[in-house]
């Protein structure tokens, strides 16, 4: 990195090949379709977050992570930690697309007795930690990253957080420790959609200038459009090239991305979709270019 001004850091990366973008785009659409099928008919749930974060999980699970869907307990796998347990919808949608779960199970999301719980619990295969009580993921990611180094297995650890979650003090305890231990195999992804339970994050408790906060804590920080597969791919490539410090990718996303009907609804922690709107939403997704 540039020793004189770390904030001016620019790492030039080659543009990702168009065929990679194309294949990932198809996967992302399929994951969004799974999200809609899971949420269909259920009214208020996390469909907005699921659609918004679909591109991030697509790039992670279909490109960036060392992950074998047939060996969920592979000790050398990269770890994906979903701090934000309520984003379970997009994790299960992704794991279903990878063949971990049968597609018939999608509709059980949120049903009594289903392993597709509204908030992801580690009792479900493929779920590394129990998220939901926010601010817990990054500390566990630090622990796993220390374990990765100590064991010499050299797996990487990805922690998915949300912007509202940055209000939890524990996140910053962990951020300090990650930089202290120079955990350059730890990558945090923050989904910044400016929405939390009580309203807009900027109204509830401002987190901006968020990139400065991470840099002040000793992290390499990038700010990207989290719905751009190209930007995600380049950001991960850049992150790989940085050593001796943990990395964060601040992913600014649009809730409901890919389905104009949901994109245009009034933003809330729970976006309400009426029973008659689901089929229209699915048609919109098929017709979209996302």
């Amino acid at each position, binding site marked *: 990195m540039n020793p004189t001004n770390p904030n001016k850091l620019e790492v030039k990366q080659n543009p990702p090949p168009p065929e990679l973008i194309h294949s990932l785009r198809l996967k992302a659409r399929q994951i969004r379709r799974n999200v809609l099928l899971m949420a269909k008919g259920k009214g208020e749930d996390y469909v907005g977050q699921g659609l918004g974060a679909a591109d991030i999980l697509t790039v992670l699970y279909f490109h960036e992570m060392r992950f074998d869907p047939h060996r969920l307990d592979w000790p050398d796998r990269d770890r994906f930690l979903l701090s934000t347990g309520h984003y379970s919808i997009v994790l299960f949608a992704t794991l279903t697309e990878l063949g971990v779960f049968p597609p018939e199970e999608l509709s059980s999301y949120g049903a009594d007795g289903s392993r597709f719980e509204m908030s992801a619990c580690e009792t479900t295969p493929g779920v590394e930690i129990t998220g939901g009580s926010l601010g817990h993921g990054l500390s566990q990611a630090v*622990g796993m990253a*220390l374990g990765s180094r*100590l064991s010499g297995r050299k797996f990487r650890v990805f922690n998915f957080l949300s912007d509202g979650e940055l209000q939890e003090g524990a996140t910053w305890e*962990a951020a300090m420790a990650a930089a202290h231990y120079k955990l350059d195999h730890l990558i945090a992804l923050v989904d910044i959609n400016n929405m939390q339970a009580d309203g807009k994050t900027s109204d509830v408790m401002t987190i901006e200038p968020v990139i400065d906060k991470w840099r002040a804590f000793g992290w390499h920080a990038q700010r990207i459009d989290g719905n751009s597969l190209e930007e995600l791919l380049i950001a991960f490539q850049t992150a790989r090239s940085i050593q001796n410090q943990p990395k964060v990718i601040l992913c600014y996303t649009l809730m409901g991305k890919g389905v104009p009907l949901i994109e245009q609804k009034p933003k809330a922690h729970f976006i309400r979709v009426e029973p008659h709107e689901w089929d229209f939403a699915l048609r919109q997704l098929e017709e979209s270019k996302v």
Partner: protein
Amino acid sequence: MSNPQTHRGFTAAMSVSETVEETLTTVEKPFGHALIAVARQNPNIVGLTADLGKYTDIDIFGQEFPNRYFQMGMAEQNLIGVAAGLSRVGYIPFATTYCVFATRRAYDFIAVDIALGRANVKIIAGLPGLTTGYGATHQGIDDLALMRAIPNMVVIDPCDATEIQQTVPAIAEYRGPVYLRILRGQVKQVLDPKTYRFELGKAKLLRQGRDLTLISTGLMTQRALQAADMLKQDGIEAIVLHVPTLKPLDQDAIIQVAEATRTVLTLENHSVLGGLGSAVADTLCMAGLSVTMAKIGIPDQFVECGSIPYLTDKYGLSIRHIVQTAKEILSWRK
């Protein structure tokens, strides 16, 4: 009652262990040495602390195994979360801080990151109850209640150096979350290491009797044994059942000793709410046993700064209180 004329103690800022009676053998840093011994055998054992390595005796583990020792700074939530992360990739973390900081500050992290998925983390907590004169911020008076309430937790309050030395390998062997209180620094040796054997989840009958049953945990067992000696001088034969593991509780042993005398006095270095006394009362009530019972422990209040003997006597945890209360509950039966 406290008497200022007889207690001229001072809060000892640098004191790291209880006042030791000269007649007793002590062991230095029993937890730290025991951890080093098991870590030599098991390379998966790692140590963590939150700026209290020197004061929880894990510092010597860090000197022995610098690569396996992680300083987390003053951040208990992170301490617990990092320990959970290490356990999820195959390590056996021993994470140390004080009882108050582990249980009050990091409660949600213990519940969700560790207990829920039965992570193999051992939480090692110093300054239980009135073993510090630092006042309410440092005295762990409610930690046993808090830890007992979390599903899947094993909760242990050892009596002395002998038991700490034996508990460490036992919990390293046990796969699952454990909360262990420790005594630190120069720790008294009361139980005979040649004959005493700690077993996870088992109560130990230390003394037989016929008039009264003392059920104790932690360092209060030291006082229970001394109180039993004094009661004997007055012709009162007391059973002493030591219950190091509060959860899972050895209910059979408790019911058996309670039935033997029908007069029960529980003793704990903890609030009288939610700890051993409550657990024993629950057990006996649910078993349909009618007994005369009293609880010795810290009253339901915060405790101020002061010297340990002063506080112990003021709050009713001293041997003379045990003897006095024992005689009192025996008189209720007459």
